[in-house]
Protein backbone atom coordinates (compact mmCIF):
# COMPACT_ATOMS: atom_id res chain seq x y z
CA UNK A 1 0.00 0.00 0.00
CA UNK A 2 1.40 3.37 -0.97
CA UNK A 3 1.76 5.51 2.12
CA UNK A 4 1.88 8.49 -0.18
CA UNK A 5 -1.65 7.73 -1.28
CA UNK A 6 -2.80 7.31 2.31
CA UNK A 7 -1.06 10.52 3.34
CA UNK A 8 -2.57 12.32 0.38
CA UNK A 9 -6.00 11.10 1.36
CA UNK A 10 -5.47 12.16 4.94
CA UNK A 11 -4.43 15.60 3.78
CA UNK A 12 -7.38 16.07 1.48
CA UNK A 13 -9.85 14.24 3.70
CA UNK A 14 -12.74 16.51 4.26
CA UNK A 15 -13.71 17.69 7.70
CA UNK A 16 -16.87 16.15 9.05
CA UNK A 17 -19.77 17.32 6.92
CA UNK A 18 -21.08 19.47 9.75
CA UNK A 19 -18.03 21.69 9.47
CA UNK A 20 -17.59 22.14 5.73
CA UNK A 21 -19.93 24.91 4.72
CA UNK A 22 -18.06 26.62 1.90
CA UNK A 23 -20.78 28.78 0.41
CA UNK A 24 -23.34 26.64 -1.34
CA UNK A 25 -20.76 24.13 -2.55
CA UNK A 26 -21.82 24.38 -6.16
CA UNK A 27 -18.31 25.18 -7.36
CA UNK A 28 -17.50 21.60 -6.38
CA UNK A 29 -20.37 20.38 -8.49
CA UNK A 30 -19.38 22.10 -11.71
CA UNK A 31 -17.92 19.56 -14.05
CA UNK A 32 -19.17 16.68 -11.93
CA UNK A 33 -22.96 17.08 -11.98
CA UNK A 34 -24.70 16.80 -15.38
CA UNK A 35 -25.46 20.23 -16.78
CA UNK A 36 -29.16 19.36 -17.03
CA UNK A 37 -29.39 18.80 -13.30
CA UNK A 38 -27.11 21.56 -12.06
CA UNK A 39 -29.60 24.46 -12.00
CA UNK A 40 -32.19 22.50 -10.01
CA UNK A 41 -29.59 21.18 -7.59
CA UNK A 42 -28.07 24.61 -7.18
CA UNK A 43 -31.53 25.94 -6.36
CA UNK A 44 -32.13 23.23 -3.76
CA UNK A 45 -28.79 23.92 -2.09
CA UNK A 46 -29.47 27.66 -2.14
CA UNK A 47 -32.83 27.02 -0.49
CA UNK A 48 -31.13 25.03 2.24
CA UNK A 49 -28.62 27.81 2.79
CA UNK A 50 -31.40 30.40 2.96
CA UNK A 51 -33.17 28.29 5.60
CA UNK A 52 -29.91 27.99 7.57
CA UNK A 53 -29.82 24.25 7.00
CA UNK A 54 -26.55 22.41 6.43
CA UNK A 55 -25.69 22.21 2.75
CA UNK A 56 -22.79 19.74 2.78
CA UNK A 57 -25.06 16.64 2.89
CA UNK A 58 -26.81 17.93 -0.21
CA UNK A 59 -23.53 18.59 -2.00
CA UNK A 60 -22.40 15.08 -1.11
CA UNK A 61 -25.64 13.61 -2.39
CA UNK A 62 -25.23 15.44 -5.71
CA UNK A 63 -21.64 14.25 -6.05
CA UNK A 64 -22.68 10.70 -5.19
CA UNK A 65 -25.44 10.59 -7.73
CA UNK A 66 -23.22 12.02 -10.40
CA UNK A 67 -20.50 9.47 -9.71
CA UNK A 68 -23.10 6.72 -9.98
CA UNK A 69 -24.43 8.15 -13.27
CA UNK A 70 -27.90 8.53 -11.84
CA UNK A 71 -30.30 10.05 -14.42
CA UNK A 72 -30.80 13.78 -13.94
CA UNK A 73 -34.41 13.63 -12.73
CA UNK A 74 -33.67 11.02 -10.08
CA UNK A 75 -30.50 12.84 -9.13
CA UNK A 76 -32.46 16.02 -8.47
CA UNK A 77 -35.11 14.08 -6.55
CA UNK A 78 -32.42 12.49 -4.40
CA UNK A 79 -31.00 15.87 -3.46
CA UNK A 80 -34.48 17.22 -2.86
CA UNK A 81 -35.23 14.26 -0.59
CA UNK A 82 -32.13 15.18 1.36
CA UNK A 83 -33.43 18.70 1.86
CA UNK A 84 -36.74 17.36 3.15
CA UNK A 85 -34.93 15.11 5.61
CA UNK A 86 -32.86 18.03 6.87
CA UNK A 87 -36.02 20.08 7.41
CA UNK A 88 -37.68 17.20 9.21
CA UNK A 89 -34.56 16.71 11.31
CA UNK A 90 -34.52 20.30 12.43
CA UNK A 91 -38.23 20.19 13.25
CA UNK A 92 -37.67 17.14 15.45
CA UNK A 93 -34.74 18.78 17.19
CA UNK A 94 -36.71 21.96 17.80
CA UNK A 95 -39.50 19.95 19.41
CA UNK A 96 -37.15 17.78 21.44
CA UNK A 97 -34.99 20.64 22.66
CA UNK A 98 -37.12 23.76 22.56
CA UNK A 99 -35.62 27.17 23.04
CA UNK A 100 -32.33 26.34 21.32
CA UNK A 101 -31.26 26.65 17.73
CA UNK A 102 -29.98 23.17 16.96
CA UNK A 103 -26.32 22.87 15.94
CA UNK A 104 -25.82 21.93 12.31
CA UNK A 105 -24.04 18.74 13.31
CA UNK A 106 -27.09 17.64 15.24
CA UNK A 107 -29.32 18.35 12.24
CA UNK A 108 -27.07 16.26 10.01
CA UNK A 109 -27.00 13.40 12.53
CA UNK A 110 -30.78 13.34 12.93
CA UNK A 111 -31.28 13.47 9.17
CA UNK A 112 -28.94 10.50 8.84
CA UNK A 113 -30.95 8.58 11.42
CA UNK A 114 -34.17 9.30 9.58
CA UNK A 115 -32.54 8.12 6.35
CA UNK A 116 -31.72 4.84 8.11
CA UNK A 117 -35.38 4.38 8.91
CA UNK A 118 -35.63 5.45 12.53
CA UNK A 119 -39.02 6.92 13.32
CA UNK A 120 -39.46 10.50 14.46
CA UNK A 121 -40.82 9.56 17.90
CA UNK A 122 -37.87 7.25 18.64
CA UNK A 123 -35.42 9.93 17.50
CA UNK A 124 -37.14 12.52 19.61
CA UNK A 125 -37.09 10.27 22.64
CA UNK A 126 -33.36 9.67 22.36
CA UNK A 127 -32.68 13.36 21.82
CA UNK A 128 -34.41 14.34 25.03
CA UNK A 129 -32.18 12.03 27.09
CA UNK A 130 -29.02 14.04 26.36
CA UNK A 131 -30.03 17.20 24.54
CA UNK A 132 -26.61 18.78 24.62
CA UNK A 133 -24.59 15.77 23.52
CA UNK A 134 -23.89 14.90 19.88
CA UNK A 135 -26.81 12.64 19.00
CA UNK A 136 -25.10 10.62 16.27
CA UNK A 137 -23.86 7.62 18.29
CA UNK A 138 -27.13 7.04 20.16
CA UNK A 139 -29.17 7.36 16.99
CA UNK A 140 -26.90 5.04 15.01
CA UNK A 141 -26.97 2.53 17.84
CA UNK A 142 -30.75 2.63 17.79
CA UNK A 143 -30.79 2.27 14.01
CA UNK A 144 -28.40 -0.69 14.29
CA UNK A 145 -30.73 -2.40 16.76
CA UNK A 146 -33.80 -1.78 14.65
CA UNK A 147 -31.98 -3.03 11.54
CA UNK A 148 -31.37 -6.29 13.42
CA UNK A 149 -35.09 -6.54 14.19
CA UNK A 150 -35.08 -5.48 17.77
CA UNK A 151 -38.26 -3.70 18.78
CA UNK A 152 -37.64 0.07 18.40
CA UNK A 153 -39.09 1.02 21.77
CA UNK A 154 -37.16 -1.72 23.54
CA UNK A 155 -34.02 -0.61 21.74
CA UNK A 156 -34.55 2.95 22.91
CA UNK A 157 -35.19 1.71 26.46
CA UNK A 158 -31.86 -0.12 26.45
CA UNK A 159 -29.93 2.87 25.14
CA UNK A 160 -31.54 5.22 27.63
CA UNK A 161 -30.59 2.84 30.42
CA UNK A 162 -27.06 2.56 29.07
CA UNK A 163 -26.78 6.34 29.00
CA UNK A 164 -28.10 6.57 32.53
CA UNK A 165 -25.38 4.13 33.60
CA UNK A 166 -22.68 6.34 32.19
CA UNK A 167 -22.15 5.09 28.66
CA UNK A 168 -21.65 7.91 26.19
CA UNK A 169 -20.82 8.50 22.59
CA UNK A 170 -19.37 5.56 20.68
CA UNK A 171 -19.83 3.31 23.71
CA UNK A 172 -23.52 3.29 22.88
CA UNK A 173 -22.58 1.66 19.57
CA UNK A 174 -20.94 -1.09 21.63
CA UNK A 175 -24.29 -1.67 23.34
CA UNK A 176 -25.90 -2.37 19.97
CA UNK A 177 -23.07 -4.71 18.97
CA UNK A 178 -23.44 -6.56 22.26
CA UNK A 179 -27.17 -6.99 21.72
CA UNK A 180 -26.60 -8.45 18.27
CA UNK A 181 -23.95 -10.81 19.62
CA UNK A 182 -26.36 -12.00 22.28
CA UNK A 183 -29.01 -12.60 19.65
CA UNK A 184 -26.63 -14.77 17.64
CA UNK A 185 -25.59 -16.91 20.57
CA UNK A 186 -26.14 -20.65 20.10
CA UNK A 187 -29.38 -21.92 21.50
CA UNK A 188 -31.40 -19.26 19.75
CA UNK A 189 -31.99 -16.31 22.07
CA UNK A 190 -35.07 -14.24 21.43
CA UNK A 191 -34.62 -10.49 20.94
CA UNK A 192 -36.12 -9.86 24.38
CA UNK A 193 -33.69 -12.28 25.99
CA UNK A 194 -30.78 -10.71 24.14
CA UNK A 195 -31.71 -7.23 25.35
CA UNK A 196 -32.18 -8.50 28.90
CA UNK A 197 -28.70 -10.02 28.87
CA UNK A 198 -27.15 -6.77 27.68
CA UNK A 199 -29.12 -4.79 30.25
CA UNK A 200 -27.68 -7.04 32.94
CA UNK A 201 -24.14 -6.32 31.68
CA UNK A 202 -24.45 -2.54 31.74
CA UNK A 203 -22.27 -0.59 31.92
CA UNK A 204 -19.64 -3.30 31.29
CA UNK A 205 -20.30 -3.79 27.62
CA UNK A 206 -17.27 -4.87 25.65
CA UNK A 207 -15.66 -1.89 23.90
CA UNK A 208 -14.31 -2.03 20.43
CA UNK A 209 -15.40 -2.38 16.88
CA UNK A 210 -18.25 -0.55 15.25
Amino acid sequence: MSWKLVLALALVARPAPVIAQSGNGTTRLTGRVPAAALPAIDSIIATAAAESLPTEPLVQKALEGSAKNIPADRLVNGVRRGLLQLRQARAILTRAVPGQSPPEGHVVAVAAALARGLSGPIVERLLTVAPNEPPGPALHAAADLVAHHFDPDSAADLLVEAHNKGLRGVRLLDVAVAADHELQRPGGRTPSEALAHVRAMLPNVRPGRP
Partner: protein
Amino acid sequence: MVNDGAPDMEVVAQVLGGDGEAFGILIRRYEPGLLRFATRMLGNPDAAADAVAESLVRAYRHLAQCRDPGRLRSWLYRITGNRCRSHLARRHTNDISLSDAPPLADGSDTWAVLERSEQVALVERALAALPAEKREAFVLKHVEGMSYEEMATVTGARIPTLKMRVHRAREALLAALEEVVR
Protein backbone atom coordinates in the same frame (compact mmCIF):
# COMPACT_ATOMS: atom_id res chain seq x y z
CA MET B 1 -30.39 -47.29 17.80
CA VAL B 2 -33.46 -45.14 17.08
CA ASN B 3 -35.64 -45.46 14.02
CA ASP B 4 -37.05 -42.68 11.86
CA GLY B 5 -40.33 -42.67 13.76
CA ALA B 6 -38.81 -42.17 17.19
CA PRO B 7 -39.96 -39.11 19.16
CA ASP B 8 -37.71 -36.05 19.13
CA MET B 9 -36.62 -36.59 22.74
CA GLU B 10 -35.31 -40.06 21.97
CA VAL B 11 -33.46 -38.93 18.87
CA VAL B 12 -31.92 -35.99 20.73
CA ALA B 13 -30.78 -38.31 23.49
CA GLN B 14 -29.24 -40.63 20.90
CA VAL B 15 -27.33 -37.77 19.27
CA LEU B 16 -26.14 -36.43 22.61
CA GLY B 17 -25.04 -39.94 23.46
CA GLY B 18 -22.56 -39.82 20.59
CA ASP B 19 -24.53 -41.03 17.59
CA GLY B 20 -24.12 -38.08 15.25
CA GLU B 21 -25.69 -39.98 12.37
CA ALA B 22 -28.99 -39.98 14.26
CA PHE B 23 -29.15 -36.23 13.66
CA GLY B 24 -30.06 -37.13 10.09
CA ILE B 25 -33.47 -38.21 11.39
CA LEU B 26 -34.11 -34.72 12.70
CA ILE B 27 -32.89 -33.17 9.48
CA ARG B 28 -35.29 -35.26 7.39
CA ARG B 29 -38.09 -34.49 9.80
CA TYR B 30 -37.73 -30.71 9.95
CA GLU B 31 -35.84 -29.70 6.86
CA PRO B 32 -38.91 -29.33 4.58
CA GLY B 33 -40.67 -26.95 6.95
CA LEU B 34 -37.52 -24.98 7.74
CA LEU B 35 -36.71 -24.61 4.03
CA ARG B 36 -40.26 -23.51 3.31
CA PHE B 37 -40.11 -20.97 6.14
CA ALA B 38 -36.70 -19.64 5.14
CA THR B 39 -37.66 -19.42 1.48
CA ARG B 40 -40.69 -17.31 2.35
CA MET B 41 -38.60 -15.14 4.64
CA LEU B 42 -35.72 -14.58 2.22
CA GLY B 43 -37.44 -14.96 -1.14
CA ASN B 44 -34.43 -16.78 -2.50
CA PRO B 45 -34.07 -20.58 -2.46
CA ASP B 46 -30.26 -20.48 -2.43
CA ALA B 47 -30.15 -18.07 0.50
CA ALA B 48 -32.81 -20.13 2.25
CA ALA B 49 -30.78 -23.31 1.80
CA ASP B 50 -27.73 -21.57 3.24
CA ALA B 51 -29.70 -20.25 6.20
CA VAL B 52 -31.26 -23.63 6.96
CA ALA B 53 -27.97 -25.50 6.60
CA GLU B 54 -26.26 -23.02 8.94
CA SER B 55 -29.13 -23.34 11.39
CA LEU B 56 -29.08 -27.13 11.43
CA VAL B 57 -25.33 -27.26 11.91
CA ARG B 58 -25.68 -24.75 14.74
CA ALA B 59 -28.47 -26.81 16.25
CA TYR B 60 -26.30 -29.94 16.13
CA ARG B 61 -23.36 -28.18 17.74
CA HIS B 62 -25.51 -26.86 20.57
CA LEU B 63 -28.11 -29.56 20.89
CA ALA B 64 -27.33 -29.88 24.58
CA GLN B 65 -28.63 -26.34 25.04
CA CYS B 66 -32.09 -27.20 23.76
CA ARG B 67 -33.77 -26.86 27.12
CA ASP B 68 -36.85 -28.84 26.20
CA PRO B 69 -36.31 -31.53 23.53
CA GLY B 70 -40.06 -31.97 23.53
CA ARG B 71 -40.26 -28.53 21.88
CA LEU B 72 -37.46 -29.12 19.45
CA ARG B 73 -39.46 -27.80 16.53
CA SER B 74 -39.89 -24.36 18.14
CA TRP B 75 -36.19 -24.30 18.97
CA LEU B 76 -35.18 -25.10 15.39
CA TYR B 77 -37.54 -22.49 13.98
CA ARG B 78 -36.20 -19.92 16.41
CA ILE B 79 -32.61 -20.58 15.29
CA THR B 80 -33.66 -20.46 11.64
CA GLY B 81 -35.63 -17.26 12.18
CA ASN B 82 -32.56 -15.64 13.72
CA ARG B 83 -30.40 -16.79 10.80
CA CYS B 84 -32.91 -15.39 8.34
CA ARG B 85 -32.85 -12.06 10.15
CA SER B 86 -29.07 -12.07 9.95
CA HIS B 87 -29.21 -12.79 6.24
CA LEU B 88 -31.70 -9.98 5.75
CA ALA B 89 -29.56 -7.61 7.77
CA ARG B 90 -26.50 -8.54 5.70
CA ARG B 91 -28.51 -8.05 2.59
CA HIS B 92 -29.08 -4.59 4.10
CA THR B 93 -32.76 -4.56 3.34
CA ASN B 94 -35.82 -6.12 4.78
CA ASP B 95 -37.28 -6.44 1.32
CA ILE B 96 -36.94 -9.37 -0.96
CA SER B 97 -35.61 -8.80 -4.43
CA LEU B 98 -38.27 -9.45 -6.98
CA SER B 99 -35.97 -9.16 -9.95
CA ASP B 100 -36.56 -12.80 -10.81
CA ALA B 101 -40.32 -12.69 -10.34
CA PRO B 102 -42.52 -12.74 -13.40
CA PRO B 103 -44.45 -9.52 -14.10
CA LEU B 104 -47.83 -8.91 -12.52
CA ALA B 105 -50.81 -10.02 -14.52
CA ASP B 106 -52.94 -7.54 -16.41
CA GLY B 107 -55.43 -6.08 -13.93
CA SER B 108 -58.33 -6.85 -16.24
CA ASP B 109 -57.87 -10.58 -15.67
CA THR B 110 -59.85 -12.18 -12.95
CA TRP B 111 -58.44 -14.47 -10.35
CA ALA B 112 -60.23 -17.46 -11.84
CA VAL B 113 -58.65 -17.24 -15.27
CA LEU B 114 -55.08 -16.54 -14.24
CA GLU B 115 -52.70 -19.34 -14.84
CA ARG B 116 -51.67 -21.20 -11.72
CA SER B 117 -48.05 -20.04 -11.98
CA GLU B 118 -49.16 -16.42 -12.24
CA GLN B 119 -51.34 -16.85 -9.18
CA VAL B 120 -48.42 -18.24 -7.23
CA ALA B 121 -46.21 -15.38 -8.40
CA LEU B 122 -48.85 -12.84 -7.32
CA VAL B 123 -49.12 -14.34 -3.88
CA GLU B 124 -45.35 -14.56 -3.51
CA ARG B 125 -45.00 -10.96 -4.59
CA ALA B 126 -47.62 -9.84 -2.09
CA LEU B 127 -45.85 -11.76 0.65
CA ALA B 128 -42.48 -10.36 -0.31
CA ALA B 129 -43.83 -6.82 -0.03
CA LEU B 130 -44.63 -7.28 3.66
CA PRO B 131 -42.19 -6.01 6.31
CA ALA B 132 -40.08 -8.86 7.68
CA GLU B 133 -41.84 -9.12 11.07
CA LYS B 134 -45.28 -9.34 9.51
CA ARG B 135 -44.06 -11.75 6.84
CA GLU B 136 -42.54 -13.99 9.49
CA ALA B 137 -45.69 -13.94 11.60
CA PHE B 138 -47.93 -14.71 8.62
CA VAL B 139 -45.72 -17.57 7.42
CA LEU B 140 -45.46 -19.15 10.86
CA LYS B 141 -49.21 -18.91 11.36
CA HIS B 142 -50.63 -19.82 7.99
CA VAL B 143 -47.86 -21.74 6.21
CA GLU B 144 -46.23 -23.55 9.10
CA GLY B 145 -49.52 -23.86 10.96
CA MET B 146 -48.24 -22.77 14.34
CA SER B 147 -50.37 -21.67 17.26
CA TYR B 148 -49.81 -18.21 18.65
CA GLU B 149 -48.27 -19.82 21.74
CA GLU B 150 -45.67 -21.63 19.66
CA MET B 151 -45.06 -18.52 17.58
CA ALA B 152 -44.35 -16.64 20.80
CA THR B 153 -41.74 -19.25 21.70
CA VAL B 154 -40.15 -19.02 18.26
CA THR B 155 -40.08 -15.24 17.94
CA GLY B 156 -39.99 -14.02 21.51
CA ALA B 157 -42.80 -11.59 20.76
CA ARG B 158 -45.93 -11.39 22.88
CA ILE B 159 -49.09 -13.06 21.61
CA PRO B 160 -51.04 -9.78 21.19
CA THR B 161 -48.13 -8.40 19.15
CA LEU B 162 -48.10 -11.52 16.98
CA LYS B 163 -51.85 -11.34 16.45
CA MET B 164 -51.53 -7.74 15.36
CA ARG B 165 -48.76 -8.63 12.90
CA VAL B 166 -50.76 -11.52 11.46
CA HIS B 167 -53.89 -9.40 11.18
CA ARG B 168 -52.01 -6.61 9.39
CA ALA B 169 -50.34 -9.13 7.09
CA ARG B 170 -53.73 -10.58 6.18
CA GLU B 171 -55.04 -7.11 5.40
CA ALA B 172 -52.08 -6.34 3.17
CA LEU B 173 -52.30 -9.66 1.36
CA LEU B 174 -56.03 -9.42 0.78
CA ALA B 175 -55.64 -5.90 -0.49
CA ALA B 176 -52.96 -7.06 -2.92
CA LEU B 177 -55.06 -10.00 -4.06
CA GLU B 178 -58.15 -7.85 -4.50
CA GLU B 179 -56.27 -5.45 -6.78
CA VAL B 180 -56.12 -8.24 -9.32
CA VAL B 181 -59.79 -9.04 -9.15
CA ARG B 182 -60.98 -5.46 -9.69
